[in-house]
């Protein structure tokens, strides 16, 4: 871990910075942060392109439709695009952009890929069920002191700690 490319911000400094980004968002837009909503809209937009009628009749999609407007023309989608851009800027300016698969010492690349997809599917579904993810619920609602967001946050830690032993070979 000694090579310079692996040096990160002090976690408390990073936390204050992240909190200030969230606070700025509240002050300027009246909303917090988010990510999973962009995935929902991308999926819904794909379905709507394939079958506009199905989209109109589906409550998960129709509730988001604004006449004459793409489902992608929404703040959460633009925020997600910004997250990708900001992440790329951060990685490139520290010269740590590298095409690689992150995994522990005891798992093969292919197994890691399969588990990454499985974890993504579970998270994508779960974030829709809970109406938000770690950003949109835990950080945003956590700072607001919204009851449901705190329930959500403790559940995330519970779910992950509960399963950690079973997938330990992937990480340690």
């Amino acid at each position, binding site marked *: 871990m000694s090579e310079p490319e692996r040096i990160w911000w002090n976690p408390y400094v990073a936390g*204050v910075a*992240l909190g*200030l980004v969230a606070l700025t968002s509240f002050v300027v837009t*009246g909303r917090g942060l988010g990510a999973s909503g962009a995935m929902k809209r991308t999926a819904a937009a794909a379905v709507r392109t394939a079958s506009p009628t199905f989209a109109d009749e589906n409550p998960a999609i129709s509730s988001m439709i604004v006449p004459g407007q793409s489902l992608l023309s929404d703040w959460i989608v633009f925020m997600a695009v910004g997250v990708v851009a900001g992440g790329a800027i951060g*990685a490139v300016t520290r010269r740590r952009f590298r095409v690689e698969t992150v995994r522990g010492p005891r798992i093969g690349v292919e197994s890691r*890929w399969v588990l990454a997809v499985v974890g993504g599917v579970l998270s994508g579904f779960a974030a829709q069920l809970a109406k*938000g993810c*770690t950003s949109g619920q835990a950080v945003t609602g956590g700072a607001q002191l919204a009851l449901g967001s705190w329930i959500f946050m403790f559940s995330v830690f519970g779910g992950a700690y*509960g399963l950690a032993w079973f997938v330990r070979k992937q990480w340690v």
Partner: protein
Amino acid sequence: MSGPLSQVLSFDHTTELLVALAVGVGFGFTLERAGFGRADNLAAIFYGRDFRVMRVMFTAIVTAMLGLYFLDLVGILPLYSIGILETFWLPQLVGGLILGAGFIIGGYCPGTSLVGSASGKVDAMLFVLGLFGGSLAFVLGGSTLVPLQNATPMGRVLLHEFFGMSSSVVVLGVVLFAIGCFVAVGKIEALVNRGRAEQ
């Protein structure tokens, strides 16, 4: 002024999108600098080795909370002028458990997987692909799943309202809870890493 700038200045749709893009850049950059573009940094918390995730997350929550409740107190940004998240306790509890499972199995959460992808991590890109699949499954099953998502509604309820306490007490309680966690996890890390060194 009173309320978010978007209302005070009545942003049009394009301005709203561009502001969201800018906030997203700051968000993604900060996550990357925090080390959250790598699954091994994120998963380390669940093996007691490095609680970076908790330190960053709780510090962020405390910072934003202190800012929000201060701006509410001085009347610049009344809490109810912003989008307070509604509580649906059961789907949030179950969704949290499944998202936690997805986190330890896949190595990321939705936001950090975008940063990982932008850093070139193949596992993060595959996680994003999975996210799309999971979201698509939810959307396709909307007729059945939307009622589940809206089950057990409690409306906009804040912790201090729920417990019938003053908001200042809960704000202070959250700060102390975070500090207590930071102290405790420092000790856990020392124990775990000493144990590893002795092996």
